[in-house]
């Protein structure tokens, strides 16, 4: 008994192979729209530490320039320089001024230095962008604001995530 011959479609080898890109274009258009929506036009790019959770706010304010300060549940830092240790509820005893517990000497020195060395107008004008953890008590934030205003930085902008 002869075996049935397998069907092979006839292919015209002279015609060029046409790939249908319509569905691919559709997909890319959707991705493009999504990316355009999330595109950030702000002149300031902040990178909060991954472990820090900021509060959410209804504010729609666009970020402006200023001295970036990070206050997490573990530490207070400006840039990569850690200025004081935080134990979740308060600053470490050694980081506070013994005569004035609201005063953080390391922060004061760092702010004074930043004010003298900076060329950014917003920093010279005393603007701070405070990136703080949402669970921190006001007592900790108050100490930062107190020391900052003593060092000539009275404008503290609170950085939040949008709702």
């Amino acid at each position: 008994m002869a075996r049935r011959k397998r069907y092979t479609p006839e292919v015209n080898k002279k015609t060029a192979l046409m790939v249908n890109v319509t569905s691919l274009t559709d997909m890319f258009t959707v991705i493009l729209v999504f990316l355009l929506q999330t595109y950030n036009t702000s002149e300031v790019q902040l990178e909060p530490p991954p472990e820090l959770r900021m509060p959410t706010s209804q504010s729609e304010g666009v970020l402006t320039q200023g001295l970036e300060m990070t206050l997490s549940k573990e530490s207070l830092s400006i840039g990569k320089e850690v200025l004081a240790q935080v134990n979740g509820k308060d600053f470490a005893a050694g980081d506070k001024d013994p005569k004035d517990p609201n005063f953080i000497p390391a922060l004061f020195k760092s702010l004074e230095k930043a004010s003298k060395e900076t060329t950014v107008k917003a920093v010279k004008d005393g603007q701070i962008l405070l990136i703080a953890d949402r669970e921190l008590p006001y007592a900790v934030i108050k100490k930062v604001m107190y020391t900052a205003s003593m060092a000539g930085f009275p404008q503290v902008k609170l950085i939040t995530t949008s709702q």
Partner: protein
Amino acid sequence: MGIKKFRTHYEEFELDLTPLLAIIMKLVPVLVISSSFLQLTQIETDLPQVVKQAIEDQNKNPDKTAKIKIIVDDSKTMNVVVTKDDATDTSSIPAKGDALNLAALNSKLVEIKKKNPSVFKIELAPSDSMSYSEIVTILDGSRKSNNNDEFIFVDPKTGKEVKTDFLFPEIVFNNIFQ
């Protein structure tokens, strides 16, 4: 005589999507790199010029305008103190369970705003134990009405009536030096 071949619309129009695809392929990586997936905002932003002017006037003449202060104690009770012409009116807003009663605070502030439309500044004195996120919710609740109410006040420069949806956009932490 030959037979005329039947042609469909699909055969006549074949849109070449390759250039479009090439552009999108270049745009996508650029946007992926520059996109910010965490949208950050800041509190204390620029205000409309008329509101700014009113705040400046209030700062210049603090005695003429009402002073509004929100004092929050450890039990999360908010005391709203309004001082005007040597008279003080205090309203207490107790906590709702373990949380701040923000809806009642917003209603109270709308009521105060209707009586004092030219005041845009309030003082906030949170308790030391309050969390930062709770403070931010008070700032949000003091900035605009929950019901999108609009308030009419007189522009100090032009003397004309102006509508605004701002309640008290300028908030000063009053107990920093205490």
